């Protein structure tokens, strides 16, 4: 289990991978990927009880993390490869023909670490509830985690799932909202204001906690707290305050890097801001 200093080093490498992958593919979504990097690093290298080397699609007796906002696939693929699910060099095939690293995560190519296709938004929380129910039936004590984007909360299905988990007390479920307050067309406050998210989830029967998603110490501490709070008759919602593009100065503070790839010069600039800690792929 990696500790804070090491986690920060891994996160820096994952950010490099993200920038190089979207530049290499000349497409992809760097903004949200960079914003979620600290969380994914903490999850795959510290929080999750999982077995990357012998991938079990059923995930028996493992903690599972479902990425509902599938467009952050560069961050997910890098975290999976760096934690041992598949060879790191395979990251260079991202979004290319006949790759296992599809634009959005998919199961069809049998990429270890992926258990459900996501990308069409709003579906991952429902799937996570199903996995949580299966774990209960199997007397499997492990936890199901689900990461969603905040723009994704516009989808009606999310609220069907939020209703179910709160009402039916899906207590082995921890959801995280990447609360960066930006979506494709602009700030969420302009596109579709989210209003008081904490009050909304609490009204649906969830226990809500918050964290700074780009402070590794806070991420590890809060996700451990979420785990401690789970299993007590309530699903847990973590509002993760984050910065789209975190770690690359010119990608921060704007929604414009949601789905735009950096050119070679911008890539060079971005990489100069990120230490190569584990060796580039």
């Amino acid at each position, binding site marked *: 289990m990696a500790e804070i200093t090491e986690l920060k080093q891994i996160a820096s490498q994952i950010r490099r991978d993200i920038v190089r992958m979207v530049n290499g593919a000349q497409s992809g979504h760097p903004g949200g990927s960079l914003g979620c990097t600290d969380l994914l690093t903490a999850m795959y290298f510290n929080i999750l009880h999982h077995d990357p080397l012998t991938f079990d*699609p*059923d*995930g*028996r007796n493992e903690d*599972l993390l479902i990425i509902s906002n599938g467009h952050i696939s560069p961050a997910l693929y890098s975290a999976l490869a760096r934690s041992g699910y598949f060879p790191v060099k395979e990251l260079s095939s991202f979004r290319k023909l006949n790759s296992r690293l599809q634009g959005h995560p*998919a*199961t*069809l190519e049998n990429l270890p670490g992926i*258990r*459900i*296709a*996501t*990308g*069409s938004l*709003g*579906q*991952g*929380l*429902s*799937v*996570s*509830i*199903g*996995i*949580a*129910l*299966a*774990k209960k*039936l*199997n007397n*499997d004590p492990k936890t199901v985690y689900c990461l969603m984007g905040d723009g994704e909360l516009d989808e*009606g*299905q999310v609220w*069907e*799932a939020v*209703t*179910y988990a709160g009402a039916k007390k899906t207590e082995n479920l921890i959801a995280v909202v990447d609360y960066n307050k930006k979506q494709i067309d602009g700030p969420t406050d302009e596109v579709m204001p989210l209003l008081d998210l904490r009050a909304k989830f609490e009204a649906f029967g969830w226990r809500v906690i918050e964290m700074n998603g780009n402070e590794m110490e806070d991420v590890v501490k809060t996700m451990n707290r979420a785990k401690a709070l789970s299993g007590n008759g309530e699903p847990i919602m973590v509002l993760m305050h984050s910065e789209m593009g975190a770690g690359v100065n010119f990608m921060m503070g704007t929604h414009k890097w949601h789905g735009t790839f950096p050119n070679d010069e911008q890539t060079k600039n971005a990489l100069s801001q990120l230490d190569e800690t584990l060796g580039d792929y």
Partner: protein
Amino acid sequence: MRDFDIINYKDTRSGFGEALLELGKTNPKIVALCADLTGSLKMNAFADAFPDRFFQVGIAEANMMGIAAGLTIGGFIPFTGTFANFSTARVYDQIRQSIAYSEKNVKICASHAGITLGEDGATHQTLEDIGMMKMLPGMTVINPCDFNQTRQATVAIADHKGPVYLRFGRPKVPNFIPGDGEFTIGKAILMREGSDVSIFATGHLVWHALEAQKILKQKGISAEVINIHTIKPLDKEAILKSVRKTGCLVSAEEHEKNGGLGDSIAQLLAQKLPAPMEFIAVNDRFGQSGKPEELLSFYGLDTPSIVAAAERAMSRK
């Protein structure tokens, strides 16, 4: 060859409910989900017998499909239950991404399909579901004809690995498949042999095709009736074998002509064995309120319509 007579009158959805209960007893991996239509889907018996394996999700079909997909991660075999319209059109992208593209072993069980839902009208009568579901790569599509066959199909799909769409109906209709009849996914059933015209029917219209065969016989026409309970994968061999013999055909289904069984058969024959073909199906229109038999007659899906279509197909040989 065994002939088929009416054993009794029963609704196909009760065949589903009975089989689901049986499956619950024999296979601990079977779980069921319902979107506030437990009574209509005849899932009460399963829900009462196995409360831990039954999930009431409320009127939230999209969430139901996602939860079902999730339950397969952990080894369960989920059967979802709601009306056919809410099992398909309402949740098409959820099925597409979370179930079909993700290769999940979910059984989508859909009642009240087609026009024979009756009085509730077109909002609830789906005539497009077979088309939508057969377009999804990897999806198996089954439309059994009566109570016994629905029971047999329900048992069969539990043993099939992969997503399945099982479509059945609301009204009490003739039950004529023997209780011990064989059911193999993808294998058509030759109901009555003939040599002049082939009638390929699915669902409730199989009985009407059998009735039409009797009338055609009185007219001196030998019709072959084949029960295509599995629309995908289609039993191509059975279809080609019959049409090679008869040289013309009729497809009969309680569905839109676009995207239905007839469509699949026409694609097959256009490439392998072009032959005069007539379609018994709803032609590019919505349904309406009425009694099931009235609606079948109004939309040209009844026995006399099949007889007339067979004569038209023969005249084009």
